[in-house]
């Protein structure tokens, strides 16, 4: 394609079929299951900024929680889901909920108003839901799908997981673009991290290999839409 070729801004997000269920991969980094009116987001890492202040005395801007919640609010307003699933590591650490500012806490409550809200257990925030509403689950089944935080090594078909914060890099003509992404082989899906301060792990990292023995496609979050990128076009860090 020629340099600077104009792109059609498409609002139609790519669809994906997993275990017979139709998934919409949204530009915000969430998955929309229209048939179940369910929105899934993963790795919110709320209160990561304040966790740094506690642990290492680094005073990162304490606005990451409200920024993450604002993005979530935008998605919720758009889809109006009957159910929201936070796919684990919703808080950066077990004491995160205690440190939340009252305003942010109210924001969570407002988001939960009138809908089912499920906190899936993560490795950072195992069994933490006190005082933050919603209900708690280790895993969740929706239709043919299994929702859990950490991708299982021998997972059943239809697993949706997070935990790894996948990120894809495209390097071309002396420029590199690195973005959060979904990664899938048609059997399972790993979601990008949703949190404002969450980092990313390159999908070419060996960690991903045993999870996708027959290869994968990454769906990178661009500025205007989601792009499907084949494995051969993805660069290592």
């Amino acid at each position, binding site marked *: *394609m020629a*340099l*600077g*070729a*104009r*792109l059609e801004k498409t609002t139609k997000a790519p669809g994906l079929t997993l275990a017979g269920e139709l998934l919409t991969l949204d530009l915000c980094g969430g998955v929309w299951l229209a048939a179940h009116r369910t929105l899934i987001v993963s790795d919110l890492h709320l209160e*990561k*900024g*304040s966790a*740094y*202040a*506690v642990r*290492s*005395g*680094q*005073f*990162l*801007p*304490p*606005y*990451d929680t*409200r*920024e993450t919640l604002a993005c979530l609010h935008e998605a919720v307003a758009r889809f109006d889901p009957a159910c929201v699933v936070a796919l684990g590591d919703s808080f950066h650490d077990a004491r995160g909920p205690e*440190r939340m*500012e009252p305003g942010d806490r109210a924001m969570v409550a407002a988001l939960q108003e009138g809908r089912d809200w499920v906190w899936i257990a993560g490795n950072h925030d195992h069994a933490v839901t006190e005082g933050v509403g919603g209900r708690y689950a280790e895993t969740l089944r929706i239709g043919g799908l299994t929702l859990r935080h950490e991708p299982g090594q021998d997972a059943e078909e239809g697993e949706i997981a997070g935990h*790894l*914060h996948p*990120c894809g*890099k*495209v*390097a*071309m003509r*002396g*420029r*590199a*673009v*690195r*973005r959060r992404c979904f990664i899938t082989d048609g059997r399972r899906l790993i979601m990008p991290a949703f949190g*404002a*301060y969450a*980092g*990313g*792990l*390159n999908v070419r990292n060996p960690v991903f290999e045993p999870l996708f023995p027959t290869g994968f*496609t990454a769906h*990178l979050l*661009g*500025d*205007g*839409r989601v*792009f*499907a*990128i*084949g494995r*051969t*076009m993805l*660069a*290592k*860090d």
Partner: protein
Amino acid sequence: MAPTGAGKTLAGFLPSLTALAERPPARTSRGLHTLYISPLKALAVDIARNLEAPIAEMGLAIRVETRTGDTPSHKRTRQIARPPDILLTTPEQLALLIAHREAADLFAGLRCVVLDELHALVTSKRGDLLSLALARLHRLSPGLVAIGLSATVREPDDLRRYLVPQITDDEPPAPLPSAGEGDPRSGSGEGSALSGEVVPSPACSAGTLPREGGRGLADAMADLVVVHGGAPPDLHMLDTGLRLPLAGHTAWQAMPAIYDLIGRHRTVLVFVNTRLQAEYTFQELWRINEESYPIALHHGSLDATQRRRVEAAMAAGQLRAIVCTATLDLGIDWGDVDLVVNIGAPKGASRIMQRIGRANHRMDEPSKAYLVPANRFEMLECQAALDAVEAAAQDTPDARLGAPDVLAQHVLGMACADAFDPLQLYAEIVSAAPYATLSWEDFEAVVDYVATGGYALRAYERFAKIVRGADGLWRVRDARIAQQYRMNVGTIVESAKVKVRLARNVRGKPGAILPKGGRVLGEIEEDFADTLTPGDTFLFAGEVLRFEGLAEDEALATRAGPGTDPAIPSYAGAKFPLSTFLAARVRALIADPSGWDRMPGQVADYLAQQASRSVLPGPTDLLVETFPRAGRYYLTAFPFEGRLAHQTLGMLLTRRLERARMRPLGFAANDYGIAIFMTRDIGERIALEPDFLASLFAEDMLGDDLEAWLDESAMMKRTFRQCAVIAGLIERRYPGQAKTGRQVTISTDLVYDVLKKHQPDHLLLRAARQDAATGLLDVKRLGVMLRRIQGRILHKALTRVSPLSVSVMLEIGREKVYGEGADEILAEAEAQLLEEALG
């Protein structure tokens, strides 16, 4: 102030040596008498050696020691307990010393501080840090004499203010440094054939100072001793008689002539502007090195031990030539250099004079140097530089406004030294020239930042790094915070680098490599390594390498086969923009045909062609040309304001053209101009709308458009990262420190995005904006240019490209082209997937 080679370093020590030799024999403890600060660790070590020799010869009981990052800890401890008479160190080590619990005792008896290469120090954040340390020293030891040693600069008064406490409106005038034992005037300007003059400080005789409204700069200045230059330099432009290209920076035509010069001199320093040029020049010289002269390479990306080896061989007179970048602009006096060759554009008059001064360190003999232009434009620039040198004109930068991030670092350091009273610390800080205009409110904001991050949302009160006690004094919270400060001191933020290791091919298996085993060639910026894909070839450490991949923290590479051309054009290295002063001279040269005969004939031919095919702009005009070419429409403009300002201009113009629906596709920039290409006919648009061009270049470009672009600019993010590291928001990554997977490290880009959205007036964002004005984005210079050209835009609609435009058009494809969004790149990668699926 003296030209290079006048022997000012030793002169700076004379008062101290005299005072120390004359003092009565030591009875008990004698404290630190003199402190010497050098920008380079190696220079401090070298000066110590040079001082020890005369001290030993004269049998003086004077102890001289160095303190650098390499000084072992037992020696550091001893230096505090039993300080030497003279201590030689760097600005970073001084910052650590004044933050030490024992600082007040250590410096109480300090008589003299010597700041070497002051002209180079004051232009950066290191100079800000040093000015704050100096303010502290003046307070700990009233009556301290500060001596600055500097090459000739444009505004010596800036340096004179830097050395002495500035008197502010809120405080009674501080006592001015008295001329006690160690009066700088007693030992200088005498005993040689050189003429010198002493300019006393106006404050010395005037006593009290005139004040202006607000926080005006009071005129407290150090005395000035000027050593006038010796013999004028023997400086020429190298004219090989060959026709030079219109663009390009390699100067390949000149290599045989340069090689010939090397053969006729003892030792030649070959200066270039970028690491890429250094690599190329080194390789070309060796290709024609039939005599096998020892020619070495020296630049900032090479392995440090490799660089030390080159320096040692040079000092020992074992080398005939060194190809080097700005890494050798300062430093050790190379005894035997008898010729300096500067390849490419000189960029600035003062810079070129300092480089020339590296040749021949005897002042009564002329320094010999050649300027080597690499293209026809650089011939103009070389001529402008020759004229400037002849007129002894200087274009060193203006005095800096102290950076807030550096101040934050200093405030934490001062809390580590001792509890501080905010009013007292404020008075001390505004006595440092770069911070003389700092308001109390801004100071309070810095203290608040240091304590809890300076956020409107008071989330970190419980974790405060410094705490105000009931007595009103601020103290550091605990030893861990003090340790954190010590680990993060300094203002030099190296971009993350990866080592380049030579990987070995597996015998009999082409394409397969052994991951380890080869030697390390040096380092490349992580940002550059990020853009490489396996198979890419690039020039490094004097050879063409093939990138094989990244393994852990190293870039593995193999030697490319003979005759391979490097495919990746360049990697980041120092690129100085053309100085405003030289730019004005170049514009004047172009505008005045009567001066053309001083330059090689091909320049006059070229300019005459431009005059007949288009037009020659006047000295203050902005020439804009528009023309169609190969299905696209081009707009070229020639502000001559340097690459950085042009890149910013290109970004902003592209945004405006986008909005005007001209469909810009991208642009390229060099030191002289920019070329923007688009799909709509820009010439036609200008013809239909007479005001279009004037509004395109209107000054309000620096308003909303700039703001919007800054918010997402990668360079702004890089600038922010540097401020965040200096101010201690995020911790430094040390070389060799294991990279802890990107999953857990926090990216400053994410921090930047969140902060600018939720607290756009935060201290660190203000610091980053202040840097952007003069740093990577050169916004300030762009502003001056836009003001200059209002009503002076000279538009020429052409049917084909003009001689001037060719030069910048040739940058397209040679350098990075801007304007390509992330989504365009991703779309192209996506298209490949579709092809695979369909194919």
